[in-house]
């Protein structure tokens, strides 16, 4: 379902060439729970940005659900992000002015889904992360774990093909982190594809399959 073939990305920082991704190739099947592990500066974020269609590779091939997204233009990538990818970030990235409900509803608004269905699906998603009773709260009124659960609800409300989580437990204490990981296991159990990016080995080993990344090079671990 995710096919990377010789994907490279080079950044130029202050005249110096940084090879963030160096001919990375991998294959992730539908329904897999994969963790991508590597120290900071290893190219994890670049990999995640390209996988999440937030950025485009300099060279190589990237297919998502069989679609050649490496050849897509900006508006097409936007649509792919909206429909196929559910992001979960380390710092939650909720919009502070909006309530939990509005944050979760937002991707559906961009999909131009009818009001009734939006309401049904938003309620469903919040129920799924056990936060329906906090729907009218703003992010600032929620704990870190609750905010991350709202972010997960926002990701799953569109029924994406791929959940892309970037250090989802990085800003949480270990107990709340476990809670979040439990949700990921549940989502995996329901047949969802999950890619989890982390530098934390304890988190990484919870995934069925681990891919290591080091200096922009990708290799299968264990």
């Amino acid at each position, binding site marked *: 379902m995710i096919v990377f073939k010789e994907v490279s990305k080079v950044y130029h920082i202050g005249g110096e060439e940084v090879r963030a991704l160096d001919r990375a190739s991998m294959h992730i099947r539908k329904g897999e729970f994969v963790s991508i592990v590597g120290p900071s500066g290893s190219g994890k974020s670049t990999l995640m940005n390209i996988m999440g269609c937030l950025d485009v590779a300099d060279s190589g091939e990237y297919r998502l659900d069989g679609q050649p997204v490496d050849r897509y233009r900006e508006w097409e990538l936007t*649509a792919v*992000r909206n429909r196929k990818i559910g*992001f979960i970030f380390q710092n939650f*990235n909720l*919009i502070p002015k909006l309530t939990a409900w509005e944050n979760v509803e*937002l991707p559906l608004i*961009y999909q131009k889904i009818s009001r009734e269905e939006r309401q049904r699906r938003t309620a469903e998603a919040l129920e799924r992360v056990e936060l329906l009773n906090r729907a009218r709260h703003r992010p600032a009124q929620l704990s870190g774990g609750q905010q991350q659960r709202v972010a997960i609800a926002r990701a799953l409300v569109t029924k994406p093909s791929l959940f892309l989580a970037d250090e989802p437990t990085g800003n949480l204490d270990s107990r709340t982190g476990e809670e979040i990981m439990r949700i990921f296991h549940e989502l995996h159990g329901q047949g969802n594809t999950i890619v989890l990016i982390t530098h934390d080995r304890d988190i990484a080993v919870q995934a069925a399959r681990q891919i290591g990344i080091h200096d922009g090079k990708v290799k299968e671990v264990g």
Partner: protein
Amino acid sequence: MVGQSVKMALKSVLSNKMRSFLTMLGIIIGVVALVVLVSLVSGATTSVTDEINNLGSNLLTVSVSDNKGKPMKLEDLRVWMEEDPIALTAPLSQLEATGKYGTESDSVQVHGTTAPYAQIQKLEVSRGRWLKTTDVDQVNYVAVVNTALAEELVGYKDCVGESISLNGMRFTIVGVLEEEDSAMAAMMGEQMTAYIPYTAALRVSDQISSEVTTFYIASEDEKSMDRAEARVKALLMERFDEDEDAFTVINQSEIMDALGSVTATLSLLLGGIAAISLLVGGIGIMNIMLVSVTERTREIGIRKAIGAGRGVIMLQFLIEALTISLIGCLIGILLSWGILAVISAVGGMAFGVNGTVALAAIAFSLGIGVLFGLYPANKAAKKAPIEALRYDG
């Protein structure tokens, strides 16, 4: 999508009340300046125009300044009218006299004229009658007075049959004019005026000779007016040795035209100045929108990450700019309405918000919202999602 954007825009405007208000202030001041100034000019114009129209729009005022030894007499006017009865003519001599009723005494404007004058000047008699041609011929000591004189000198409105004295001569009041309801009269107060036969006026004061120096000509429509004007000019030229400078003929519609163009220019000038302040308000909006775009870089990144396209982001910020300018505009119009109401109450003249200028203000504010919102909105829309997400604000 637009509905959602409007909701978001309102939310964002309300979440920064002080900032939004200060930004709106520029637009509010601009709109108030525009609406109040233009409404005042157009209100004053309307009331002056009404005043002139009341005098009769088809009116010629003829003044003779140099009679070349051939003074015009009342008889001459009558002969002209009989020769070609297309128009009404009436002479006018004005003087100030001391009016007395019982022990009351006051200064009174006396107008000596003839029967057609009422029709020419559109004077309406509410009680009694107007001057008749026989009054002029027989030099009757009768007077038609206005309401101000009736109420202030005689003491009551229905004073037909009472006698007043003007410079010591007794006149019987035969008619009372209808009350004037023009804005000008309301503002300045009506002067006490008595209309008496032209021939009688000659005897009230020595200053008035039997020579007619001022007279009015009126006709039913503009077409016959032009004919009358041409005719009276020809007659006067013939009488005063083809000397154009011996007399002047003032056409009321020419005055109206001149007045119209003056006030139109004035409106345009004031409106232009006010529009500049609106423009400055627009720059304020652009400024604050740019700040807002920078502050919300991260929000823009999040929205883009979860699927908002350029158009959606652009629309959101554009609608926000429009919301600020439109709310400012509406507050400005309401405020103008209040200010004009106060001016009307204090000044005694009725000023309302001019509908055209209110619409123009709305259109202008919309234009400014779009014009000055476009650049910040485009800046927001163009942000790359990864950089925007990385932004720490």
